[in-house]
């Protein structure tokens, strides 16, 4: 390929965006060339979705500009984005599923005869023709909801292509596609490159990023880490960019375990489509990490232990008793607590005060007859945790959605710690939190483990984990592939990252 002057199609400059409690994007410069397939990678919460929402006009920016094909926008609306040629193909289908394929393709622009009446034969013919041009064959008379997911995905992409989009955002397009369909999809996408259409390809299937993208941009915690040509990178390098260059700041004091007292024993846990044959143990006071990329099964496993999702077959023992919990309510009773990845959605009832959010799970302990809450005891507990965890809030009556992100996370921690669990599962506990608060969080984790709580952290912030964990279990493709003991020579970031990425697999003994 000869070196030609690459024309810039999209330029997002100095994008800052904050939500209450979290800085979603900080000073991001993102550029896409014409005819390029540009991968966008990063963990959950890294800011990819916020960046795309801004590009689509769904969110405003606090500062920064967007320039598409020479036209500068500072405030963009969705219709302006569409008019500028930005199209979005979501992971979950967003079409008019009660209508036929043909109507979805031609919506808003149905062929009519001279008197303005819809010409149905023409509708179906035109729809078929358009699909044909892309090499897609679908039953245009079929209702979209009757199509298989693969077909729906391809239709969605086709629709974007039909709207003469110049820049198409593909959000995890291959999630439900088998290999032959993926090939077909990639074939389309490549064929469009030659027409000057650019793609932003969001995926956590790194192999695909390497397969189809020209350049890739890595986001991390709201910062743009780097934009590089794909051919200059290998998977390990990419993961390293995604997962952490932060200097390890926290080092937990690890007392050697006097005796190994298993608190949670997982045996043969299998859930179709997510994970298989999971065996591990977490002892009293131990901090163990489950690390893996999205899709490795780690998140599903974490949620399954808490009853938020199904666990599947296999057995889990907590303090010797079988974990039968099928809901968080039951899990808490059996001594398992869970810190969710998205604290806004699952962790806090935003409009309610700190005090209430902390005591939700332990109200049973604080009530007298008839469910009356003992205000004094509640106040004492709340104050204690606010103090111990260093939660900064004007008062316990403050609504939690007015706190900063780090403090909100601490409130969730307080809530969980108050249940005095046997096992605490933390899902990306430091996501979206500034550095100071991160130290606080790990300090809390450290103290909890010193008190005897068995802690399981689902996270791939390798450097942070090395500072706080005793062991790191790497998951890949649904199984635990390696176990690292922190302190031993092989437990270094490079090795661990490699394992996370799937290289160097050898089955654990």
């Amino acid at each position, binding site marked *: 390929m000869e070196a030609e002057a690459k024309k810039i199609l999209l330029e997002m400059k100095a994008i800052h965006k904050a939500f209450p409690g979290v800085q979603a994007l900080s000073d991001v410069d993102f550029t896409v060339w014409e005819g390029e397939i540009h991968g966008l990678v990063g963990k959950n919460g890294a800011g990819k979705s916020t960046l795309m929402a801004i590009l689509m006009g769904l969110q405003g920016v606090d500062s920064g500009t967007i320039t598409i094909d020479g036209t500068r926008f500072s405030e963009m609306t969705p219709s302006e984005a569409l008019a500028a040629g930005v199209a979005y193909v979501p992971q979950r289908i967003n079409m*008019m599923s009660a209508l036929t394929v043909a109507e*979805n393709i031609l919506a*808003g622009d149905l062929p009519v005869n001279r008197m303005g*009446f819809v010409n149905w034969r023409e509708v179906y013919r035109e729809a078929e023709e358009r699909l044909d041009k892309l090499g897609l064959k679908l*039953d245009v008379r079929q209702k979209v909801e009757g199509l298989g997911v693969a077909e*729906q995905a391809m239709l969605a992409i086709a629709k974007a292509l039909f709207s003469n989009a110049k820049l198409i955002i593909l959000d995890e397009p291959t999630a439900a596609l088998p290999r032959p369909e993926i090939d077909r999809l990639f074939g389309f996408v490549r064929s469009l490159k030659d027409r000057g259409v650019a793609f932003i390809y969001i995926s956590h299937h790194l192999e695909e990023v390497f397969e189809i993208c020209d350049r890739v941009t890595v986001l991390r915690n709201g910062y743009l880490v780097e934009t590089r040509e794909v051919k200059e990178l290998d998977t390990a390098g990419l993961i390293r960019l995604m997962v952490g260059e932060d200097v390890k700041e926290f080092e937990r004091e690890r007392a050697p375990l006097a005796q190994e007292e298993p608190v949670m024993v997982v045996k043969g846990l299998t859930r179709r489509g997510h994970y298989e044959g999971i065996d591990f143990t977490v002892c009293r006071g131990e901090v163990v990490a489950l690390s893996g990329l999205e899709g490795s099964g780690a998140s599903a496993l974490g949620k399954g232990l808490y009853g938020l999702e199904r666990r599947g077959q296999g057995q889990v023992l907590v303090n010797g008793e079988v974990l039968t919990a099928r809901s968080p309510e039951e899990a808490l009773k059996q001594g398992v607590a869970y810190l969710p990845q998205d604290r806004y959605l699952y962790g806090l009832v935003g409009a309610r005060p700190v005090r209430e959010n902390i005591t939700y799970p332990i109200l049973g302990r604080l009530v007298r007859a008839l469910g009356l809450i003992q205000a004094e005891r509640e106040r004492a507990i709340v104050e204690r945790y606010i103090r111990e965890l260093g939660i900064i809030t004007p008062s316990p009556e403050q609504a939690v959605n007015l706190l900063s992100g780090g403090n909100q996370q601490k409130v969730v921690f307080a809530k969980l710690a108050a249940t005095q669990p046997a096992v605490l599962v933390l899902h990306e506990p430091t996501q979206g939190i500034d550095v100071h608060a991160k130290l606080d969080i790990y300090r809390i984790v450290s103290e909890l483990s010193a008190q005897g709580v068995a802690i399981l952290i689902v996270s791939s912030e390798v450097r942070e984990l090395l500072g706080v964990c005793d062991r790191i279990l790497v998951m890949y*493709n649904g199984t635990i592939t390696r176990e690292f003991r922190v302190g031993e020579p092989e437990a270094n970031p490079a090795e661990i990252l490699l394992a996370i990425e799937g290289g160097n697999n050898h089955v654990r003994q």
Partner: protein
Amino acid sequence: MRRINLGGFFLFLVDNLIWVLVIIALVTFSALSKSFFTPFNLVNILYRVAALGLLVIGQAFTLITANFDLSSESTMGLTAMVAALMLASTKNGGLGWETHPLLAILVMLLVGVAIGWVNGTLITKFKMNNFIVTVAMLMILRGAIYAISPGKSASFLPASFDWLGGGSLFKVMQPNGKPLAIPTSAVFLIVAFLVAFIVTRYRRFGRDMYAIGSNRAAAESAGINSAKVIMLVYMISGFCAALAGLLEAGRMDSATPRTGAGLIFPVTAAAVVGGISLFGGRGNMIGAFGGVLLWAILDTGLNIMKVSPFWIEVGRGALLLFAMLLDALKVEYLRRVSVQKALAGNPIGLKDQAY
């Protein structure tokens, strides 16, 4: 690649259930009562249900866009009363203006459209909840009816005004030699449904309605101006309600403050039974017509059989319940099918979703 499967068959049955029911009802009542299956009675069925049918058209329009218009019965009553007041002499309860019938009709239609406009504005511009807004309007308008009429009825309206609702179009000769008058309203009803069918099936506007009802955001990204369409739909509903008022006032030759009261339930029931989903985006006017027919057949048939009106009420409620249940089940099933297809045959390696 159309698959023959149990689910598909179930759907087909449910989608066309209404006609099965209509046929069953017809057959049952004809068997149970000799006076049922006579030309006179059958025509009479349409005649009595014409106003309801117009309301169903309006309701169907809003339902297709996934909105409710629960105020249409009051709009019907209000427009009927307004016209009656304009037309009737003072001794018959009117204002004594005795305006020209055409003027009265014009005013009626304008009022209906205006009410639709108000509904539409509150719902699209002010983004208020459509259910509550139209219920509130239901109450307000009914209050207005009582306010403008002295609480009694206005009757004895000009024959030309009554023609649409109460007059006849032509006469046919029956086999037994007696002439049968074909009511204008029956023909009008059929024509109205035909027009509605054509609009919803063959006009862009109609297809836009379905698009919005199925997925409003997707429709908007396809460039459809959903606010405008919804506004128009409510105005159409108001217009249909005014027509219903015209038909009813014509048939009864009067308007009372209670005209149209309580109709909202049979109207919704007929629409839903006829396949118009409460969730929007599904159903067609033919099915809705079937719903009207079924309703009318049940009403007339049960009346002929001298079933207590209260049991009829219960039956109506049960039918509505049944229809809504079926509707909910159908939509739930359809929405889940796609997800199931995704999970089927999913070996490890197809990744877990973040949520």
